[in-house]
């Protein structure tokens, strides 16, 4: 696998900066984009039309970022389809369940998973009723509390109902949140919390407060007893539960799970709008989007010296003991300028040289610069090919929660030395050299002596006769 080079994409983004029109097709036949997202402009919002006004601030915000919004009612069977010709039709899909119980037939859990496989980003807001989303959630590793339970907290004392819980963002949530940075306003949450399974692709974006729990808001007295019977003692409580979770699917699609649609609604005096913007920015691949632009390896020192390969060039195959240099260029998407810029900020990248098991596993640090020139976004290391022939793989496998996975593999055979690739004279072999030389010399001396003595022997024979 080779990554495309940086240049065409860079040019494309330059074009983007100048042509600030709606979604058009440029001279190269590539679709230029108008939105901030790195993966596409079209958004399908599945939302009850009656409730559309409640979400106006959030949806307007998306429109302002250049997204093309299409609306569809959850029950509308003839609405715009999610999948056309077996391919996802929209780049991003927002599903707000609200109090809808049955969705149109073509909006099924299976379709939504199919969208994720087709690299469509999803924002899914659970409703207060059992719906397709509640049956989809376990596939993503979300563990939902028993039906009809809400997040409840009696602290801090407040005027609003106990099921509207103010949540303050913690430092650990901040990296994803660009707009929320520095703003202390709590998020007002109303909806269902969920526990998270051990699926490494799933991670919490916003945890429930430590004193909150899941319960039925109508019968306040028997909450604990109920949940003991339903799901075990006090398990649906505490800050291990999340109200917003992110999921990074294989292939790059992102899914944001929201415990309730309230997070996207217009709420006065809260951080909800900013928070929703940040969650959508992450889910629609505006932030924390990384990419491998190129990766290459080349021979530094080794068999090339004996004429078997060219030093300084990439090789089809390496010889055992070769010095190999591995270089990788990584860039990050800048949503504001809609371009990819070289990214120097990863300090824990690792390179593996693997055949069944990693024979070499070394850090792949950001380059400090070469020949006095700064090299932004370049990660470079050198290593010695192990003394073992076989088909090896260069592997860079970097997975961090919230960031795009960086995965690179390329196979390259490492071959044993050629028959003439060994040293010609070995000091250990001197006894054998001496043996060969002395035998040869001895033979010549013997033959010479034998030939020289022919006459005498002939005389001797004659005498004997």
């Amino acid at each position: 696998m080779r990554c495309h080079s940086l240049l065409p994409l860079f040019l494309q983004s330059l074009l983007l900066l100048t042509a600030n029109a709606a979604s058009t097709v440029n001279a190269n036949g590539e679709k230029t984009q108008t939105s901030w997202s790195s993966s596409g402009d079209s958004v399908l919002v599945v939302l009850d039309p009656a409730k559309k006004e409640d979400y106006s601030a959030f949806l307007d915000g998306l429109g302002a970022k250049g997204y093309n919004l299409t609306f569809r009612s959850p029950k509308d069977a003839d609405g715009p389809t999610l999948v056309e010709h077996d391919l996802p039709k929209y780049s991003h899909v927002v599903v707000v369940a609200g109090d809808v119980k049955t969705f149109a037939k073509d909006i099924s859990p299976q379709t939504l998973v199919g969208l994720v496989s087709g690299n469509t980003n999803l924002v899914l807001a659970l409703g207060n009723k059992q719906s397709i989303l509640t049956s989809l959630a376990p596939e993503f590793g979300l563990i939902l509390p028993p039906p009809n339970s809400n997040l409840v907290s009696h602290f801090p004392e407040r005027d609003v109902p106990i099921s509207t819980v103010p949540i303050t963002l913690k430092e650990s949530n901040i990296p994803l949140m660009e707009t929320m940075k520095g703003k202390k306003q709590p998020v007002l949450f109303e909806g269902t919390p969920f526990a998270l399974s051990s699926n490494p692709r799933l991670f919490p974006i916003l945890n429930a407060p430590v004193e909150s729990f899941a319960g039925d808001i109508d019968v306040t007295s028997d909450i604990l007893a109920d949940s003991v019977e339903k799901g075990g003692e006090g398990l649906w409580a505490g800050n291990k539960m999340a109200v917003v979770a992110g999921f990074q699917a294989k292939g790059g699609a992102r899914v944001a799970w929201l415990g309730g649609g309230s997070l996207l609604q217009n709420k006065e005096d809260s951080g909800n709008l900013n928070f929703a913007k940040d969650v959508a920015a992450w889910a629609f691949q505006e932030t924390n989007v990384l990419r491998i632009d190129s990766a290459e390896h080349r021979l530094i020192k080794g068999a090339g010296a004996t004429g078997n390969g060219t030093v300084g060039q990439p090789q089809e195959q390496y010889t055992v003991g070769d010095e190999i240099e591995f270089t990788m260029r990584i860039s990050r998407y800048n949503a504001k300028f809609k371009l990819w810029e070289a990214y120097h900020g990863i300090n824990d990248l690792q390179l593996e040289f693997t055949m069944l098991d990693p024979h070499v596993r070394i850090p792949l640090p950001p380059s400090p610069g070469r020949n006095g020139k700064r090299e932004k976004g370049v990660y470079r290391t050198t290593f010695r090919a192990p003394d073992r022939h076989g088909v090896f793989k260069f592997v860079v496998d970097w997975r961090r929660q919230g960031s795009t996975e960086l995965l690179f593999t390329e196979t390259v055979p490492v071959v044993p030395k050629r028959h003439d690739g060994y040293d010609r004279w070995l000091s250990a072999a001197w006894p054998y050299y001496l043996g060969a030389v002395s035998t040869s010399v001895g033979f010549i001396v013997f033959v010479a002596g034998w030939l020289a003595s022919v006459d005498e022997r002939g005389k001797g024979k004659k005498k004997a006769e």
Partner: protein
Amino acid sequence: MSRAYPLPTNLSSSTVTNTASLVRIVALGLISGAAIASRLFAVINFESIIHEFDPWFNYRATRVLAAKGFYEFWNWFDPTAWYPLGRVVGGTVYPGLMATSGVIYNVLHALNLPVDIRNICVLLAPGFSALTAWATYMFTTEMKDSSAGLLAAAFIGIVPGYISRSVAGSYDNEAIAIFLLMFTFYLWIKALKLGSALYGTLAAIFYFYMVAAWGGYAFITNMIPVHALVLMLMGRYSTRLYVGYCSWYAIGTLASMQVPFVGFQPVRTSEHMGALGVFGLLQLVAFAQLIRSHLSSKQFQNLLAIAVVSIGVLGALGFVFLTYKGWIAPWTGRFYSLWDTGYAKKYIPIIASVSEHQPTAWPSFFMDLQSLVFIFPAGVILCFRQLRDEHVFVIIYAVVASYFAGVMVRLMLTLTPVVCVASAIAFSTLLDTYIDPTEPEVPEEGKENADGKAKETGGSAALAAVSDIVAATTTEAAAGSSKTKTAPKPKVKGIWGLDTRFLVVVNAIGMLCFFVMHCTWVTSNAYSSPSVVLASQNPDGSQHIIDDFREAYYWLRQNTPQDAVVMSWWDYGYQIAGMADRPTLVDNNTWNNTHIATVGKAMSSPEEVAYPILRKHDVDYVLVIFGGLLGYSGDDINKFLWMVRIAQGVWPDEIQEPNYFTPQGEYRVDERASPAMRNSLMYKMSYHRFSELFGGGQAVDRVRQQNMPKQGPTLDYLDEAFTSENWIVRIYQVRDEDVLGRDLKSANAFTAGKKRKRTKPASRRRAIQQ
């Protein structure tokens, strides 16, 4: 002297010899033609195609050699074999066969004959069989005379035991190795007879060629020393033996070490120690002879006794010490399995799993040798009558090869030449005796004498006939054999009349005719199938070609990425590499038992155990051979127990052979199949959607003759990618990991619409430690 029938008397002796040599040349030419022609059944019945398994690798290697030259071939590292380990082909191959084809290819192209390399490979074996016939002629001529030689050449030309490994398309090492074997033996006999360093050196050169061509060279490495040793023990030490053996051993060993695959084995492994020991012994004996000529006999005897004992003890101790220190490698498993036929099955299942390593069944002796198998002992006994040095060789060869042929089917090949030689000696003696027109002089009491000795007449008369030749051969040879007291006293015995002669000769010719018919029949029916292409008969008797293998391999070639890794049982590795040009996990070069056991484990484990193994080895496709629809019995389900056994050898805790049998100990694939069997990847891949094929009727596996259950196995981790026309080859694609990180089984259940069970968050309370 009376004669049974008149001979022309007006011919000069030079005319007779000239005519005889012309007839010999014509006969040899015809024999060569017959040898080549009878091997072409495969090309005529099928097509010009490489056969079976190993030849596909040889063919592929030859193409590399022809395209890139010898040095690139020598340094060829094949990254597609044994993925991801790779194979250093140049250093792990006997290059003689490929080099031979490469030379022929280059010569033909230099002559502007643009012959395709494939046709050279296909026709190499028939071509070399003609040379084998010639080499056998030369060898047998040394044993008796040229008429026996011609018979031996005719025998080896068409005998099925040799044809089985040398039909057109059977491009294997044996194709040229048998010629080299016979020719090296001929040169050795010649060197021994003449005491010639030139012939010894020539023998060494052909020995080197043999080493470069076939792993069976160890047969020569041990046959010649055993012959030399026996001659010494018989008190037949001579300077001829010394010169012949030393020149052969010194040059041959040095030359054989030039083959990269052999390397230092000739001085480091037990298989080669016999030759070294005999070499040392010869020096001692020669030295003893020298001392004897300078000392009185009394002193010499004392000295000899002391020296023999001390040197013998020292040598044995040294050998034990070197083996103990690991400087001499101990005997290999393949060697032990030659002596104990049960050894391989117990300790090295991978060797026992090869069908050609099984002990030979009695009928196959008749199948491969027909009447020769009865006549052969007579020839060996005739060798005892005269017992010259070279006859000792034939006797030893006959004994050793007979034993080995009984142990392993494939070693039938080494027995065949000596059978042909010995049978030819017997046959030609018989014919000599009965065609010879000389009538015995009849004294008075002759009649009853002749009647009484009727049984012996053949042999004795043969001796009379042979004694002429003995007299004619070199005086040295005669001196060598003079001790054997074979000179017969002139007694009156012989054959009277034409009728006796006629009866025996017609009978003998009849046997030869039946031999020819048998050979032709066996060759055309049993040994000419390429096994890549199968043939069956339509109801009207016409031939129906079953071409599933190539269909599937070409599908792989054309529909999968160049670097898609294909996993299959090792039998098909070379074919996949040769025909589909895709990397394989294991192939017929079974050098890495663990890697093969890994494949065996994947095949015999449930899907969820096998899947991580497949992912770890980057497997994209899995290929299985399934004969249940067509009744093709050589399929993977029948080989499955070997996979289990080999996997068990490495992972005895995870794979156990008894689990794959029913509680009654039956090997079943129907409803009563054991759970381990039914869950194994191999079973699932073989019978996936099999019952659907019968459209609701009873599905029957025609190989096992068992009724399959209505509900076939389902696959979660693999997708069916291709199934050939007759279902012989089935190819599955390994699915990618799930996009949501679930295991594929539950992902499939979800896609099928099954509801997942409600889960609860893991309890954070822990049980109190006791």
